């Protein structure tokens, strides 16, 4: 389970002064649920998710990952977490197997457990053919599979995806979407951020619309349609963001 309560993050920027990248963001995601964070570039998605992943400390507010506070129990929180973002790359000079093994070791797994887990993941993700090749020679698809295996090596209860399909071709993006759905099916708690409306539509149980660091609206697809009176998710999004900007 993920719970965010009034998460706020401000940065001090030389030119722009104090920026609130996230302001009072609160939401809750249950196991077996996919929460979609929908927002344009600079809306505050990455900042919010980095706070959940304990990479950034909230300026104010709090959050828990599977019951562990992200500030006071950040190590335990990370142990329950798989974090996959466009910005989480692979070590180019390691092979896929070495990369995944390293993260298994960092998660305190025994080498026998790591070997067994890699076998399972490589079967599922169809990775056997490139498991012992170096990551810097991989295609985007192979990289993405290796990254997924890396996040799953310790079988975390919570998965956080930050725009995982950014810059991927259609086929690879589709396989990611399928994989996220699999996570849900296995009862994992999932947060998924994107600026692509169609992905949210296909994937998410609950959608939160984020803009200017604030969570403006939250609900199922049906609820958002009803609230805005728009059938199309894109129109609904524009309407919600537009109402905020008009204020």
């Amino acid at each position: 389970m993920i719970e965010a309560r009034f998460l706020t993050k401000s940065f001090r920027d030389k030119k722009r002064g104090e920026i609130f990248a996230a302001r009072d963001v609160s939401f809750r995601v249950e196991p077996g649920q996919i929460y979609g964070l929908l927002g344009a570039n600079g809306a505050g998605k990455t900042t919010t998710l980095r706070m959940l992943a304990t990479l950034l400390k909230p300026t104010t507010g709090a959050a828990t990952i599977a019951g562990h506070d992200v500030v006071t129990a950040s190590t335990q929180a990370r142990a329950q977490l798989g974090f996959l973002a466009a910005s989480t790359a692979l070590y180019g000079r390691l092979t896929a197997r070495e990369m995944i093994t390293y993260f298994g070791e960092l998660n305190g797994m025994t080498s026998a457990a790591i070997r067994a887990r890699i076998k399972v993941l490589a079967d599922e993700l169809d990775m056997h053919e490139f498991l012992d090749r170096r990551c810097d020679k991989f295609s985007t698809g192979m990289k993405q599979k290796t990254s997924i295996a890396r996040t799953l090596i310790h079988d975390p209860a919570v998965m956080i995806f930050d725009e995982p399909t950014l810059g991927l071709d259609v086929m690879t993006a589709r396989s990611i979407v399928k994989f996220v759905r699999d996570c849900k099916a296995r009862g994992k708690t999932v947060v998924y951020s994107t600026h692509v409306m169609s992905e949210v539509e296909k994937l998410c149980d609950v959608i939160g619309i984020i803009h200017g660091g604030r969570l403006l609206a939250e609900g199922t697809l049906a609820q958002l349609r009803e609230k805005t009176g728009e059938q199309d998710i894109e129109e609904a999004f524009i309407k919600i963001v537009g109402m905020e900007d008009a204020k």
Partner: protein
Amino acid sequence: MNWSNIITVYAKELKDSLRDRRTLMSMIIIPTFVMPALIFGVGKIATTVFSKARSEIPTVMVLGGETSPGVVAALGDSKKVNIVPTAADWKQQISDKKIRATVQLPVNFERDLAAGAAESVIIYNYDGELKSGFAANELEKFFRTLRERAVATQLARRGLPATLIQPFETKRENVAPPEKVGGNLLGGIVPYLIIILCFTGAMYPAMDLTAGEKERGTMETLLCSPVARVDIVLGKFLMVLTSSLAAMVLALTSMGVSFAVGGAIFSGGGAKVAVVGKVADATSAAASSVMPSIDPAGVLGVLAMVLPVAVLFSAVIFTVALFAKSYKEAQSYVAPLIFVVIMPAVVGMLPGIELNARLALVPILNLSLVCKEMLSGIWHWNYIAIIFGSTCVYAGVALALAVKMFDREDVIFRA
């Protein structure tokens, strides 16, 4: 702090770095092969140039020789110099290196000398020019002998003994043990090399493991693993330290081996290292004539003193490189640091600068000075304690700073 995590991070960084060509170069290839080759090469070239200059017969000009044909003829016969006809532009010719020196004889030098006293002989040379200096030396030697012979003649004519003008002689002999001589010759250059190698050895992995990771986006991946940041820093830091020490130890070993083998080659004759047992004595004797032997305890002492300095360098470069967003940016921060490191090392190489309590607190310079002493067989334990202690404190502070920086999100996630 969790040692098993630190070791996991360290082991991965070691494996990763050994696959990085840049780190491999600065950590292994350059110290082992390029450094000794460079030093031997420069040494060899210097020796060759010097002996070639020595063996050249300098061309000189004689002014005012018309009234002293006997002296000019004797100078020509000496075969030590090559006399060319007098020309008006002799000064220019010395500057242009067409001739090496000019000697001016006073008018009627020969006649006055025979009579008992003559005016000064003036030798013109180009100060600071090696070959011109050699020519002037030869001329001086010739005229000194001439003078001594004149004195002897005068004394004999008056029936006086030769000891009248030289009642005693002075001689110089070396009482320092051979390792002390070695220390003074090598003592200057070895600490300097050690300092540079420690620095360059640490440089590439320190940049790769910090700014390089940020640039490639693996830093964020690593930070979402459930390992405390202090463990990550220490694991990475140990890798940087390993590279720093490896570079230094490899270079010293390689140079030591080269000296042992190359000593024979340098001395020329005994170069045929065929029968090892028999040649060993000749080799070591030959080697000691070129490279005086070094006290092994001194070498161990130097290694012990270098350890905290390597920690200091590794931690400082690590911290500085951590600020950069990219490898390139890190290079532009770290490269100027080389001068900060080289300056005190060079000052320590200067002859005449001796260790005292205040200099013992100056990082790098103190290492340079204490190494010079240790290699000469001098052990000032009080200074050694101050230097080791103070460097450990500096190193500790630098490492604490590195850990602190790694915890700052504006450093790790610099926008």
